[in-house]
């Protein structure tokens, strides 16, 4: 299965939200990374058919999705940003409602709901009202509803925002398990989520594709450009002015800076292994702490 996005454009007034964006997605998890306002949500809304692109084309297995709209929608599972669902619905009831919306046969609906509730570890809470769910439980329920139609394309928009670390890990593991036979597009600005599970990372800036690479390759591209420097407060101000700073920690009156720089920023700078977050900062940089 291949989802091709060819030169897709979208403008809001004079602002280009997507500018000739192209990408090819096959099986696996794709991390869609970009700062706020980079066009991630716009791209997702176009992919799921909520927004009409101003130009370009999206094909699935070679066919224009506009021409196979119903079949294409049947293949999509979608979890939007910050869904709160219906507070007065119980989890099971909500999933059965979603089955009805998705046109899933009643005969299979109950079985599918059971399977998914088990998969997202909500079997015990199936008769609890969604209003009583934590953020993490809601997101797991969201994943379950997205999986009801056993989609070939699973699109998740900021699925881990607002989750505590335990829920985030749990959520990442679920996504990993789901990625075997489908395209999973995971839009986020939480880099660590992608670092662990993405097969490829799509970097988006101002509506344009910056890179589509495997995480290892991206990490390799920045090798030798991430430094650890120990500095006092005066020196720190100097570093902040002249470099992209990834992280700062304070220890016994001294501060340790993580610096992204093509050249060695100082004599005492030590080269360290890069993380995906460093790639993110390198691409979208201009960060002063």
């Amino acid at each position, binding site marked *: 299965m291949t989802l091709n996005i060819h030169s897709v454009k979208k403008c809001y007034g004079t602002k280009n939200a997507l500018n000739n964006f192209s990408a090819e997605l096959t099986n696996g998890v794709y991390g869609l990374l970009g700062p706020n306002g980079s066009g*991630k949500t716009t791209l997702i809304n176009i992919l799921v058919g*909520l927004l009409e692109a101003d130009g370009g084309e999206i094909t699935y297995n070679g066919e224009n999705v506009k021409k196979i709209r119903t079949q294409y929608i049947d293949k999509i599972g979608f979890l*939007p940003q910050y869904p709160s669902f*219906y507070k007065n619905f119980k989890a099971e009831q909500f999933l059965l409602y979603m089955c009805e919306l998705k046109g899933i046969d009643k005969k299979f609906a109950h079985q599918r709901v059971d399977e998914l509730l088990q998969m997202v570890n909500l079997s015990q809470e199936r008769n609890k009202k969604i209003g009583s769910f934590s953020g993490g439980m809601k997101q797991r329920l969201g994943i379950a509803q997205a999986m009801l139609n056993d989609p070939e394309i699973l699109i998740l928009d900021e699925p881990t925002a607002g989750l505590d670390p335990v829920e985030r890990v749990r959520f990442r593991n679920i996504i990993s398990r789901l990625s075997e036979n489908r395209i999973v597009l995971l839009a986020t600005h939480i880099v660590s989520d992608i670092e662990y599970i993405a097969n490829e990372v799509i970097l988006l800036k101002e509506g344009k594709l910056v890179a589509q690479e495997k995480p290892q390759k991206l990490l390799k591209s920045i090798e030798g450009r991430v430094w650890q420097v120990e500095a006092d407060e005066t020196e720190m101000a100097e570093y902040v002015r002249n470099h992209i700073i990834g992280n700062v920690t304070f220890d016994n009156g001294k501060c340790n800076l993580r610096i992204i720089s093509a050249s060695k920023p100082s004599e005492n700078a030590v080269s360290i292994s890069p993380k995906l977050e460093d790639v993110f900062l390198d691409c979208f940089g201009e960060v002063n702490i």
Partner: protein
Amino acid sequence: MRLLRYEFRKLFCKKAVFICLALFLVINVYKISTLPERENITSYDEYFSGYDAVYDIVKGEMTEEKILFVVENYQELSALNEQNAFSNDPNENRFTRYDFGDYIVFMQFFNGMDYAYNYSTNMSGYINLAKENVDFFLERGNEYEASVNQQIVDIYGGRGISAYYDTYGFSEFFEYDFSSLLIILLLLLSLASSFTMESESGMDMLIKISKKGRQHTVMAKTGAFVLFGFFITVLFTAVDLIAFDIKFGLDGFFNPIYSIERYFTFTLNLSIFGYVMLSMVLKFIAFTVIGLFIMFCSSLFGSVVYSFGVGTFAVFGIILADGTTKLGASKFLALLNPLSLIANRYMLDTYSVVNIFDYPVLKIYVALIAMLIFAMVLIVGIMFAYSRRSIGTKKLSLKMFKLHTGGAVG
């Protein structure tokens, strides 16, 4: 069908709706209980029991025996009245224990039975005049006026009242509109969020990308509302009937509607029960149009505050417009107001038609057709507005993101 069930649950199976419904029913019953009692010239316990005793004798089919009973008693008491010979002492032979009490009781039954007995004779004067008019206008080639008069003959001809019942309770029942106001308020409270709830819960996007998302969902919501609207119309009508029966007594369900003196020239040949049912259906249609309008507002906006605000403004506009149109600004415009079907008695209590292509059409039919057209237009409008409101989701995401993080979104 299952989608409709889910939509019904989403829209109406809420604590707030149950509480409002219960509260409004209580308020409605209280309001009926505080309606002014029937005006009585005299009132004491024996008077009322005497009235009931006589009513038990005379109610039902008007037989010669019953008529004689009322006429003889009334004449006897009238003669005493003329002679100023009423005794102030209790009299065990009187139904109310007093001459004066019996006189008032029999006067009421005499007048009521006189109206019923002579209805046909009194009406025949109008019918004969209408028949003459038909010939008169046909001779002069005025076919429209001839049709009008022919319609009067067709509607009012052959009418008669064969049974007597005290219909005061029904007369008051048909004048009562407060429950309709409560139903409109309930619709406003429950329907203002009918579509905004989807964007506010983040479900809008999921619904719109689902197979049965757009048109199916709109139809299911509309269907759920129609069911709820019908349920509350029937419920409030039933509660009104029970409360009025307790307060005033309702009798003569199957007597003709024109047996109520106020509806002497009522334009439809129905029983009282028939009019209760018709009025309920007409109100239900009016509530449907008003409800659809509120849903339309909800489909236009992303926030319940706006849809509730605009809906409330529109409902008050409708009420105000009904008042001004009744005052005579434009009687035709009043037909286009859903309230004309709620207070349908104003269109039905006298013969009144609209000239449509030189054919007299009863106003009630014009109003009914107008409301059905409005309902269709509103359903199409909701479908269009809801399907097109996709950009709103982007704005919502932005808004929600800002709420969560204080930033912008990608």
